[in-house]
């Protein structure tokens, strides 16, 4: 039987399987998910949450910590289809590989927004965790833009992130 750590590591897959395809579709990108890194982000969030010395850190704290670790460890990267296609054709010419590549709707080179995939993914995970706790994140597109840019270029602790995200949370009943 798997230990708790192993079970929890496996749970992290849901972030990738459910959220990443939405990001890919909206931004016409193919994303590569390093599952080990995503699992580590999730487990490290659990670990650092224990440092807040509460028996049950609330959903805001949980959201801040997972957001922090995803943004720090960066489990996503943009897959460059063009370079893959070039390598594929070269191997085909050397008769080392057979088959054909079907057209994939992706932007190559990727648009400027692509450098923010990890920050946006971290924010989307945080929105889900907070909503799962019964609250609503009131972030409009400009605020998400600012937060993503700030997350990329400035330093944040999980507590600072919690304060920022917390400022945009309202109780679902109000």
């Amino acid at each position: 039987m798997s230990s708790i750590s192993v079970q929890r590591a496996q749970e992290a897959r849901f972030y990738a399987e459910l959220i990443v395809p939405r990001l890919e579709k909206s931004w016409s990108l193919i994303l590569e998910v390093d599952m080990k890194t995503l699992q580590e982000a999730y487990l490290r969030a659990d670990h650092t949450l224990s440092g807040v010395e509460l028996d049950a850190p609330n959903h805001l704290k949980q959201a801040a910590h997972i957001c922090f670790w995803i943004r720090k460890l960066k489990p996503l990267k943009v897959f460059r289809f063009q370079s893959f296609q070039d390598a594929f054709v070269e191997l085909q010419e050397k008769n080392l590989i057979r088959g054909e590549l079907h057209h994939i709707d992706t932007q190559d080179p990727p648009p400027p927004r692509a450098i923010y995939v990890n920050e946006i993914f971290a924010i989307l995970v945080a929105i889900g965790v907070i909503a799962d706790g019964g609250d609503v994140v009131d972030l409009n597109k400009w605020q998400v833009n600012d937060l993503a840019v700030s997350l990329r270029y400035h330093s944040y602790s999980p507590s600072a992130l919690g304060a920022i995200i917390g400022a945009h949370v309202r109780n679902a009943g109000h």
Partner: protein
Amino acid sequence: MIITSAEGLTNEEAEKTLRPYARNTGKRHHPKDAALKTVAFLDENPKFLEEVGELLDSAQK
């Protein structure tokens, strides 16, 4: 979506990352429930990611 390191962390790595004292932190969110809430949020705001992407593109120009 392409998944690399799809086998994930080894048992030893997972154990090492999540130390025993971190195991009892009360009610935790489950990634599946949280991710489904994110999906619901995006369904309610179908243009959200696209519009954020446009803003991020313009910020880089």
